[in-house]
């Protein structure tokens, strides 16, 4: 570690691995990441990147599912389809944001040779899909019985 006592203090990644400015620019984020730990095997970085991309596609798929639900569910009254569509889209948005945060945390851990943190995303995704599926199923059955 360089020993500059005056300016940087201990705000670099070593001491506070989870410190991150939420609104830092991409260049600033990249610089901060590069200052953390050592260069890992590139394959690790790529694996981490592919994981992020897979989560991002999951998020896009959820948004697509929400859009499809809004168009193809014919519930009466009309607004009922929002019960299925809106949570799907919101879940997609939340996962898109969380997967980026998770990528950065993982990248930092890889560079510091620390164990990777478990993510809450699989639990939220599984739970979310179960709840939305139940809502959709119940709505469809009720709609069928009433009309």
């Amino acid at each position: 570690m360089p020993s500059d006592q005056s300016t940087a203090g201990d705000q670099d990644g070593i001491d506070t691995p989870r410190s991150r400015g939420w609104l830092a620019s991409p260049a600033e984020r990249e610089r901060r990441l590069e200052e953390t730990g050592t260069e890992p095997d590139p394959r690790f970085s790529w694996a981490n990147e592919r994981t992020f991309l897979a989560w991002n596609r999951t998020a896009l798929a959820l948004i697509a599912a929400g859009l499809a639900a809004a168009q193809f569910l014919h519930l009466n009254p009309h607004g009922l389809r929002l019960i299925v569509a809106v949570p799907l889209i919101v879940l997609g948005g939340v996962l898109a944001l969380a997967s980026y945060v998770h990528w950065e945390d993982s990248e930092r851990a890889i560079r510091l040779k620390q164990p990777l943190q478990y993510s809450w995303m699989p639990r939220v995704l599984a739970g979310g899909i179960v709840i939305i599926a139940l809502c959709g199923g119940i709505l469809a059955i009720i709609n069928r019985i009433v009309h």
Partner: protein
Amino acid sequence: MTQAPQFDPALARDRTALAWTRSALSMLAIGTLIARAAFEADLHALAVIAAIATLALALVTWRQGNSLYRERAVSSSEPHHQPGALGFLMSTTLLIAVVALVVTIVL
């Protein structure tokens, strides 16, 4: 850092580039869905804008994957971590979510 490319039996770089390509394709698909939903909701201007914007964003995403191949061509074994590109994709997805939400509620 002018060494030959690392031996990469698992084709990690290729798989990553292909993952970017899949992401670009997903974005095209969702652009179609948003445009269709916006037309149904009589938001014609939004439909056209959404279609063009997602097409452009998908192209940028696709190019991002291709840039990995270009890096291989110049035999750089440096790992690239690219918060810029990943952050861009994340912001794009959030934007798509917001537009999808608007279209869904108006529909």
